[in-house]
């Protein structure tokens, strides 16, 4: 059987991070096409906003086109479940990345652990401030489960150290401008603040801008998340110490491999862990 195979990849929302995942997915598709001689395509369909019901709509529409597999980054495994059940009913195999599958569904999960990512960032910050002093957490979008999970794990780390005190939490709703406003005001209210961690991609950029504007470079430490180019720029500029980044390209890549295997009816692993990087100025210069 040499008919072309078509997969649909649906991330959480339109966002550069998912573009990187998509790049990895396309690379895997190209490799598979070349090595198997069978045309394998991955179509990328992103919801315009990170909203479960919007994502469900997109998943349903993708089911309507009868692809050979769905590659999903679930916003909420419970909220997506009934829609995923429709895919099961239509006999469309699924693979998830950057998230966990609903309980009881036998689906391969590709990615890294959000909790681990938050924990790594918080631990790094704790070390930078010698395990004492005031810190603040920018919580991202409070309704986004992965942001909330990172926040919980970061707070757990700080709670371990008796001399570290979380004096403020902000929310940025995924807006750099809001993150900047909140961070500025928080640093104003807490002049002794030592460091920052964030829970989403927009937050650390806004915090970095606020640190720069408040003339607190070096005085206030920040450990960011992910590897967007403005995050990297802030690290290069020395405003932000480092960033705990998952590996989006690798997640996309392995998700396609797993989806392909599943489409061929093979057994696939339960988990594929793609790991977490700590990006610093020195790793960047390499």
């Amino acid at each position, binding site marked *: 059987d040499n008919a072309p195979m078509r997969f649909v990849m649906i991330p959480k929302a*339109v966002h550069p991070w998912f573009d990187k995942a998509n790049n990895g997915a396309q690379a895997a598709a190209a490799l598979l096409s070349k090595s198997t001689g069978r045309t394998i395509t991955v*179509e*990328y*369909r*992103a919801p*315009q*906003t*990170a*909203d*479960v*019901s*919007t994502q*469900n*709509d*997109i998943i*349903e*529409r*993708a*089911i*309507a*086109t*009868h692809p050979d597999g769905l590659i999903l980054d679930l916003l*909420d495994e*419970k*909220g*997506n*479940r*009934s829609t995923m059940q429709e895919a099961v009913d*239509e006999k469309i195999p699924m693979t998830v990345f950057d998230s966990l599958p609903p309980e009881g569904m036998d689906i391969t999960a590709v990615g890294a652990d959000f909790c681990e990512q938050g924990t790594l960032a918080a631990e790094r910050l704790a070390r930078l401030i010698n395990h004492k002093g005031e810190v603040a957490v920018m919580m991202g*979008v*409070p*309704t*986004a*489960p992965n*942001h*909330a999970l990172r926040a919980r794990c970061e707070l757990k780390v700080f709670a371990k150290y008796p001399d570290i005190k979380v004096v403020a939490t902000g929310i940025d709703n995924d807006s750099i401008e809001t993150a900047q406003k909140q961070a500025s005001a928080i640093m104003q209210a807490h002049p002794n603040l030592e460091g920052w961690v964030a829970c989403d991609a927009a937050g650390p950029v806004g915090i970095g801008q606020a640190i720069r504007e408040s003339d607190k470079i070096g005085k206030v430490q920040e450990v960011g998340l992910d590897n967007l180019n403005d995050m990297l720029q802030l690290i290069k500029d020395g405003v932000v110490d480092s960033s705990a980044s998952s590996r989006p390209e690798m997640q996309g890549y392995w998700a396609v491999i797993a989806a392909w295997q599943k489409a061929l009816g093979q057994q696939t692993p339960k988990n594929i862990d793609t790991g977490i990087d700590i990006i610093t100025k020195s790793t960047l210069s390499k």
Partner: protein
Amino acid sequence: MSHETPAPHDGAARPHQPDIMTRFKAVASNPLFGVVIALAVIFILSCTLSSNFLTAFNMKIIARSLAFVGLVTIGQAILMILGELDLSVGAIGGLAGVAGGIFMVQAGLDPWLSLVLCLALGTGCGLLNGLLITKLKLHSLVLTIGMAGVYGGANLVLTKGVAITGIPSNISFLGRGMLFGLPVPFVILLLCLVIVSFVMIRTPLGRYVYAIGSNNAAARMLGIRVDAIRICAFSAAGFFSALAGILMVARLGTAQPSIGDTWVLAPIAAAVIGGVATTGGLGSPFGAVLGAVIIGIIENVIVLFGISPYWQSIVSGGIVVAAISFDSLARRYFNREA
């Protein structure tokens, strides 16, 4: 009409057989003419351009995802006919949804009782909007921007942003089930639409809504209880949002705090596409829901056609613009003729 006999009210005095052209013009001058034609064009185009469009499964998912925005649109349309606007409908839907979840899961109440409570809560939020607007004489636009913050905030405070899981499965039928071959939310939408249309057309209350939207002061002078009716309309909008919210919870099986985030602008756009004027007094909930159908189909085919996510927003925005332009041009063309 022949110019030989320009007698007054002759239409009533001697009815005559209208010819085809007159009939056509009468049809074309119907406020729904534009939206129906636009809908037909979009539907036919979609059928031709994608073989996946006109399938039972696809129609089902269009109907179901339409139902939620459609319900909110009904409430917003009533308000717009009245000359008001409520930007907190999305937040009310979300709040009512999570409250429903809390009642069912955390308080362990009977799902049906929870449903009733949740609808009462949404109606109450709408009532509160209406009371503040009428009693304090506030601008509905800004009051509801503010209240959207309050209701959205209450949602966050209640949930801490975390979805409430474990919604009892005996109400999931409301969100996921099928009835007469149609998704249940869609059946509920149709039912609400029929009832509301009936009220708007056939009862004094509905007439009063049009009257207030057309001339508030004159309505007051006629002895119409303007403020009471405005409060009712806000409550109705709250009710429909809450209904959409709880149906969404039933569909998802979890109470997501983000429910309703996308229910603010789309219903307004849908209503205007469907012929409801933002200045009040014109249009109908039925037209507004047709507008929502247009938007729903557009959103559907954009994915079916495989349009790049980066282009989706341009395309759907462009189609909304095209639809209202088309409507306006058609109206002008036929009015010139008539």
